[in-house]
């Protein structure tokens, strides 16, 4: 097992052994969060910067706790507090942070490719925490981890991802990652949010949710952003809900023991009904819990170095 990338920018270019190294390392970190003293000294002396240009509570907090549980020092910068509002370019912001000698930069940015751009001039490890509609690799890794935990395998499972596929970085990262792990991925949504060209990624496309969930082992619901309606991607939330909301009624037709996932934050009653979100079939909070172990694994592998050093 070996992790060869210096940065974690996307799942698309990860090898199977890199993915498995993250997943198995995460397995061993899961237990730390259950201890009374939730801390190991592994990354003591390492400095990590959380650089968030978009609002985020879950991902930022998850990375922060992951870093702290490995004893790294972590600093948070967010857009409103940083000098971006004063007109500084992204490159200058990052170069200034780099001058403070961090070991890793965790980037959340509304522009696709921003972490890649940063990695072209930056010495520290860059971790993509979500870039525009491009990718959100740690989300997909924690989703894969959760699926494996629940279903004991990923290979040959049918994973249905539902919602605003066009704008979803979570969907893209999962499409690339889960297929590498052998899953059959089906994308579901209204045609304006699900271009037929996505077929080229090797997935199935279905506009009909009822049909798609019949054989699904995993149903992953995506947040539908309300502003998409204003851009005419669909006529109304009411109609979206009627066609694509996962409700108890609809879920009755789904395959037995299928699990419900959501990257959060949920619009309760829009893409997912409250009773289902809180049901036994929902693994949404497990995703959050696993997120810390997976991000600890990513930080450990990139910064702790043992896996990497043997690879190099």
């Amino acid at each position, binding site marked *: 097992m070996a992790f060869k990338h210096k940065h974690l920018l996307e799942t698309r270019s990860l090898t199977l052994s890199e993915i498995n190294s993250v997943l198995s390392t995460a397995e061993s970190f899961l237990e730390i969060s259950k201890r009374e003293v939730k801390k190991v000294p592994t990354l003591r002396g390492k400095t990590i910067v959380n650089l968030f240009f978009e609002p985020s509570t879950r991902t930022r907090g998850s990375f922060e706790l992951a870093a702290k549980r490995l004893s790294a020092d972590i600093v948070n910068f967010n857009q409103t507090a940083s000098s971006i509002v004063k007109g500084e*370019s992204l*490159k200058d912001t990052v170069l200034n942070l780099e001058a403070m000698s961090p070991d890793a930069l965790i980037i959340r940015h509304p522009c696709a*490719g921003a972490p890649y*751009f940063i990695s072209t001039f930056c010495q520290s490890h860059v971790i993509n925490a979500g870039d525009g509609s*491009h*990718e959100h690799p740690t989300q997909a890794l924690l989703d894969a981890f959760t699926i494996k935990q629940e279903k004991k395998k990923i290979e040959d499972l049918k994973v249905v991802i539902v919602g605003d596929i066009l704008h979803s970085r979570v969907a893209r990262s999962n499409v690339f990652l889960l297929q590498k792990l052998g899953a059959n991925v089906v994308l579901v949504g209204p045609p304006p949010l699900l271009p037929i*060209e996505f077929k080229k990624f090797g997935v199935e496309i279905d506009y009909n949710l009822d049909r798609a969930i019949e054989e699904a082992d995993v149903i992953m619901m995506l947040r539908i952003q309300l502003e998409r309606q204003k851009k005419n991607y669909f006529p109304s939330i009411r109609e979206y809900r009627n066609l694509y909301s996962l409700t108890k009624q609809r879920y009755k037709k789904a395959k037995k023991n299928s699990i419900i996932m959501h990257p959060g934050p949920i619009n309760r009653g829009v893409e997912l009904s409250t009773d289902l979100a809180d049901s036994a079939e929902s693994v949404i909070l497990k995703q959050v819990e696993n997120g810390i172990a997976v991000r600890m694994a990513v930080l450990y592998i990139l910064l702790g170095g043992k896996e990497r050093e043997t690879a190099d």
Partner: protein
Amino acid sequence: MRLLIKNGRVIDPSSGIDETLDILIEKGKIADIKPRIDNHKAKIIDASRLVVAPGFIDMHVHLREPGQEHKETIRSGSLAAAKGGFTSILCMPNTEPVNDNRGVTEYILSQAKKEAVVNVFPVASVSKSQEGEELTEMADLLDAGAIAFSDDGQPVQNSHLMRRALEYSKLLDTLIIDHCEDKNLSNGGVMHEGHYSYLLGFKGIPDFSEEIMVARDLILAEKVDARLHIAHLSVKGAIQLVKQAKKKKIKVTAEATPHHLLLDDSFLENYDTNLKVNPPLRSKENVQALREAVKEGVVDVIATDHAPHAPDEKDVEFDKAPFGINGLETAVSLILDKLVNKNIISLKRFIKMISTEPAKILGLKNKGRISVGADADLTILNLYQEILVDVNNFKSKSRNNPFHNWKLKGAPAITIVGGKKVYPF
């Protein structure tokens, strides 16, 4: 002052000449063309092993002056043109202020007279401030020296206004250069919509954003019987429309840029902002169709759409970078190496597309040909010279060219404007 160009292989598509000839230049005009001319008063340029062509004309250049002199000036842009083998360039009106009135046109011409080493022909805007609402005073602008009209970059969305512009252009027998794009369909896109935009998570500009506007404007040009020049054609559907329109004798001409002929959207995987351009780099299928269109003659003209941007402006997130490729200094070598040397088009056809045709379309009667009495604008090519593109050696003020480090064979050797050697400097 007399100049005698000796032993060059003279290629002039307008007369069909392709032979070794001497050319005598007097008072900025071509005075004589013969297999052998001896004139001891003339300064001699030895053109053996070189090709002597009528001066190249770039119909599509952004010079940025007035208003954005940090990107390019009339001076720096003209030096880049001379180095790139161009003797005449048309500068687009999207300056600050927009070239929508006599004052700006006259300013550009007076700056060009003082500073430029090649001929500069200002293109004025179709609508005031390029806002697509009111027509500019086209007759006054032509009188001031404008050569054509375009709302390049901010194309006229209102079909009624486009109709009136085309109608009015007939009164003046002038040309509208048309950047065809439905801005609603482009919807804030930053690259070609397709596999790669979905892969990279970018907002896409669909091919039909261009195709629909080409269709609209061809219909308008046919109905009002006006002339129309389609700028930077880039998609298969639009190419087919132009082809049909030509069969129907609609007065349409079209241009293609080197970057649309040589690069496709798969290059964007490295998020290089120097590849961000509008129209965007299209899919391989479209690139192939464009090459066919050049070969078949559906495309009349090669133009650069030289769009300089300062390094800082391009050194940002892809979404935030401005559109545009800096093209004057690489166009000729790119076409020679990638199309002429690869036998996709002949050298004669290339010269036709970059000199003869632009002169004809623009009504520049003394340019685009090598004959006695014509302006002594000549582009002399060395087909054997191998170059390595290095943006750091550009004469342009900007560096936003994606062909950095490309090895190319064939380059402009000498540029002569009005009987004066302007390159090598």
